[in-house]
Every structure is written in structure tokens, then in C-alpha cells.
């Protein structure tokens, strides 16, 4: 019983992390209609930047620094590469971002080497919490909390600010945004940058749990995709829900059929998309 309870808690924590990783991907896909396959590498870049900065300036400044550096890279990527293929088939965006991801991954190889690196959690979050037999590392609790803040913050910002209203409108129908006199290219740049920064921050958070490797992001690319599709395109609540579903299933399935935990998310996605064509909480959007 303790075990099941631990697994559920663990699944929720994992789910929040997955949702945060997928959040940036979801925003960019929703507003710009671009399948950002560079999302994984931006995640890894965030982690590596943090690795470089953390000894110089400590946890919080390093995280902010990593997010800013990767954010600037995001602006450049959007302005130079992604901008050219708005309105084209999303697949071209896929090729361009994938090519970019390949190149950057190799740059990480050249600078940092292919060998893995590990990072310890910041000092304030070391150690573990025992509740009976249940064990939860403080760092995971911290990450879960932080992810909740990011997810909740994004959601509140989208629903309660005028900028958020524009972004939501953009997710629903981007042409409408420019028709209403807003600067659509600017909106897309801003959203892409925000997406990049969230990717970087999730990279920073995840690096202390999963270690670093130049190819670390690729492993989270497909899960992000699955989370977004299960939750539904263009819905932040959906992304959170999707993340929790993936997190809980991978966690609980490891008790029942541990051999197929890697396939389960795909099966769930297939079932969801089959019966709810727009995902669980999805709205109609520009990809249709």
C-alpha cells in the first residue's frame, strides 16, 4: 500500500516535470504552428549552461542566467530560421529545427565532450523526506513545486493578462490576431522565446535528476509531443493533464508491467487521439 502511495506521489512529481518540459513545445506549436524539434536541444543547452554557470554564481543566478542565454539563442533561432517557414507545411519547420538540433548537439559534443556529467542538487534541496516508509527526495519536491509555479503562472498569465488574451487568440486563430491589429510576428517571437526559456529552465531542473549528456534532450522530445497531443493542442490545462497522465502511468505501470512502460505512453496517446480527435481538452486551432 505504501508502495502504491509512493508511486502515485512519484507519478505526480514526474508528471509535473513532463508537463513543464512540454509546455514550451505546446505554446510554440499552438501560436506558430511550428513543430519545434529543437525543443530537446534547447532543454539540453539550458542544462549545460547551468552546468557552466552554477559554480560561478550559485543555483538561482545560474538558472536565470541559463534561461536568459538560451532565451537569446531562441530569439536568434526564431528570427533567422523559424520565421522563414511560417505558413508552410509544419513538416518544413520540423526539418529546419531538426537540422539545427543536430548541429547544436554536435557543438555540445565538441565543447563538453560526449561523456556524461552529473550535477548535485543545490544545497537547500539535498536530502530526503521520509513519511513512514515513503521516501521523497527534497529536490524532487522542490522541482515539483517549481514546476507547479511555472505551469500555474503561465496559466494565470494567459487567462488574466491582456497579453495572455492575445496569445490565447493566437492559439485559436493566428490570422485573427493580425487582423485585430496586433503584431503577429512579434507575438510569435515572444512566444518562441518564452517557450525556449521554459525549455531551458526545465533542463536546469532536470539536470540534477537525470545527469547531462549532449543527446539528453532527444529522449524528451517524443514524450513532450505525446503530452501535448493527449492534453490537446492549444490548451495549457490540457498540457498539465497530459503530463500528469504520462507521469502517473509510467510510474504505476512499472509496478504492473514494467517491461512496457516505454510503449504505454504511445498506446495511451493513440487511444486518446482516436476517441478525442483534439486531445482531452483541446480546442480547434491552426493546425486543422
Amino acid at each position, binding site marked *: 500500500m505504501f508502495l502504491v502511495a509512493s508511486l502515485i506521489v512519484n507519478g505526480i512529481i514526474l508528471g509535473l516535470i513532463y508537463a513543464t518540459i512540454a509546455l514550451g513545445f505546446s505554446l510554440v506549436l499552438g501560436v506558430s504552428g511550428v513543430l519545434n524539434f529543437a525543443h530537446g536541444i534547447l532543454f539540453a543547452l539550458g542544462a549545460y549552461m547551468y552546468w557552466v554557470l552554477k559554480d560561478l554564481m550559485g543555483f538561482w543566478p545560474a538558472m536565470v542566467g541559463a534561461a536568459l542565454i538560451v532565451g537569446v539563442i531562441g530569439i536568434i533561432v526564431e528570427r533567422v530560421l523559424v520565421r522563414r517557414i511560417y505558413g508552410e507545411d509544419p513538416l*518544413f519547420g520540423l526539418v529546419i529545427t*531538426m537540422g539545427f538540433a543536430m548541429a547544436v548537439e554536435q557543438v555540445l559534443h565538441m565543447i563538453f565532450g560526449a561523456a556524461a556529467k552529473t550535477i548535485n542538487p543545490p544545497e537547500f534541496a539535498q536530502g530526503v523526506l521520509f513519511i513512514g516508509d515513503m521516501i521523497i527526495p527534497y529536490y524532487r519536491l522542490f522541482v515539483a513545486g517549481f514546476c507547479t509555479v511555472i505551469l500555474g503562472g503561465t496559466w494565470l498569465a494567459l487567462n488574466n493578462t491582456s497579453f495572455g488574451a492575445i496569445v490565447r487568440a493566437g492559439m485559436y486563430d493566428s490570422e485573427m490576431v493580425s487582423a485585430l491589429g496586433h503584431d503577429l510576428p512579434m507575438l510569435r517571437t515572444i512566444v518562441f522565446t518564452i517557450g525556449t526559456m521554459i525549455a531551458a529552465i526545465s533542463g536546469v531542473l532536470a539536470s540534477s535528476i537525470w545527469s547531462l549528456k549532449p543527446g539528453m534532450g532527444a529522449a524528451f522530445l517524443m514524450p513532450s509531443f505525446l503530452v501535448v497531443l493527449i492534453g490537446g493542442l492549444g490548451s495549457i490545462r490540457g498540457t498539465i493533464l497530459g503530463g500528469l497522465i504520462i507521469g502517473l502511468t509510467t510510474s504505476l505501470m512499472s509496478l504492473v508491467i514494467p517491461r512496457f512502460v516505454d510503449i504505454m505512453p504511445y498506446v495511451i496517446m493513440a487511444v486518446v487521439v*482516436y476517441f478525442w480527435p483534439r486531445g482531452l481538452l483541446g480546442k480547434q486551432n491552426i493546425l486543422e
Partner: protein
Amino acid sequence: MQIKSITRDPYLYIFLIFALYPFYPFLGKFISLGSELLLFFIFTLSFNLCLGYTALPSFGHGALYGMGTFGAALTFLHLTPGMGIECALIIGGIAGMLGAAAVGWVIRNKKGIYFAMLTVAFSQVLFGLCWRWDEVTGGESGLTGIARSSFLGMDISGSIPYYYLCFGFFAACAIIIRVIAHSSFGMTLQSIRQNPIRATYLGYNTGFYKFLVFTLSGFFAGLAGALYCFLAGAAFADIFDWTKSGDVVIATLLGGGTASFYGPIVGSLIFLICKELISAFWEHWLLAYGLFFVLIILICPRGLMGLCDRKEQ
């Protein structure tokens, strides 16, 4: 008139270039790469019936190719050991076709990204199963010991005879695929791509035709996969991974499959040859390779053939 239409046919030149391939001074030594290239042509051409003609972004074509590979390998090892490879090739093609039919029927009415991700799910599930099912698929170490013997009585164990077998299949498939692309059915597909709603109002059951083209394309993909298994002499589960499907999508888009019928051929040439050449000379070749993709799409957003002309019909 007749002769002119033949001399102006790009296929004539493509076939000529590849018929003489083994005799080129340097390139001719890459004989297996040549065979692989031809198989990749079949694969991307068939894939482009889905992507370029019907706008079906299948991300599971690698799985169909893989089904062909494993179908042929298992047939050759267990049903027809020591015999010619004809049977195995047919079974490979049919395996690809059946796989495509099964998936295609279920997801025939899904659109765009949803279609793509459902095919990814299909290929990842197959990958997971294949990787673990040691008894049948050999799991991690795959199926090996597939020594090709003969095809219709001809000895094809050498590299050059096998190259010409692949060439023969490529020529046949390429011609058939073009006939299909230019047939009424091909026009049906194009109409579905351009305006699916109008197409339904003109009597086209769009889902059904999507299913048909996916199945058909699955047959050619399976056939290419089956031929590949005899080229490699082995079959590995990695073929089911979505990255293999990604390769096809990228190769087709780079070449401009949505803009021209011949896009996939140009794309595959660039994709494979550049990969082999760059990787032979520089340790960090992925950097150049990745930037190369970016550059191509920046310069010609519709792929290389998008520069040349509109779709020939």
C-alpha cells in the same frame, strides 16, 4: 514525337546514370551504397505518394519498411531456407502492405499532425515489441545469417549482380509509381490534398482513398525493406525506431517531394551521399550535416526541386 518524349524523360537519365554506376571510377566501389541508394529511392518515391500527393504525413513509414525486412527475413530463414529469394520478397512486400492496411484503416480519417503521431505510435510499439521478442526477431542482436542465394535461377550472391537486381526492382517500381501518380488515382490523391471537402462533394470518399494510397505505398516500402534485408544479410529491430521514418521524411522534403515527382530521388541522393561523404572526412560531421539541412530549407523552402518547376502532372 515519340522519341522526343522519351529523350525528355528524366527517368531516362536517372536510369542511365544508375545502370552504369558500378563502372564509375570512384563511386563504383561504393557498390553496396549504390544498392542501398536504389532501395531508398523506391522507399522515398512510395512515401511521396502519401506525403507529396495526398499530404498524408506518415511518420511510420520506417515501420512498414521494417515489416518488409522482417517479413522477408523470417520467411527466408524459416519457410524457404536455402531457396531463392522470390518468395521472401513477395512476403516482405505483402507484410508492408498488410501493416499499412491495418493501420491505415484505423486512422484513415485523421488529419495532419494526428495522423503523423498515430503512425509514430504504431512504429514505436512495433519497435518495443521487436526489441524484446528475442525468440522471433532476435531482439538486440537481430536476425543474421540471411545469405541471399538466387533470384529466378540467377545467382545474386555477388555485390554487382545484387546491385543490378535492385536496379531492376527500382526501375520497375519507379515506372509503376509514376504511372500511378499520373493516373486517375493520382489525380484523385491530388484533389484530396488540395481540397478535401470539395473532393467529398465530387464523390470521393477521402478516407478510403487515403487508406488505399497508404496501403499501396506500404507495399512498395515493404518491398524495399525486403530487398534491404538481403543486402544487409541481417535484420535489426532498430529499423522500427521513429528516426528511420524521420530520415525518409527529411530526405523527401529536402528534395522537394511536395513540389515535384522527382524530388524524393534528388532528396535521397543528397541525404545519403552527403552523409557518407561528410562522415568519412570529419569527426564532427553531424554539425555540417545539420547546418546543411537548415541551409537547404532556408534557400528553397519547398525543397530543392521546388526551385525548378511546379509539379508535373
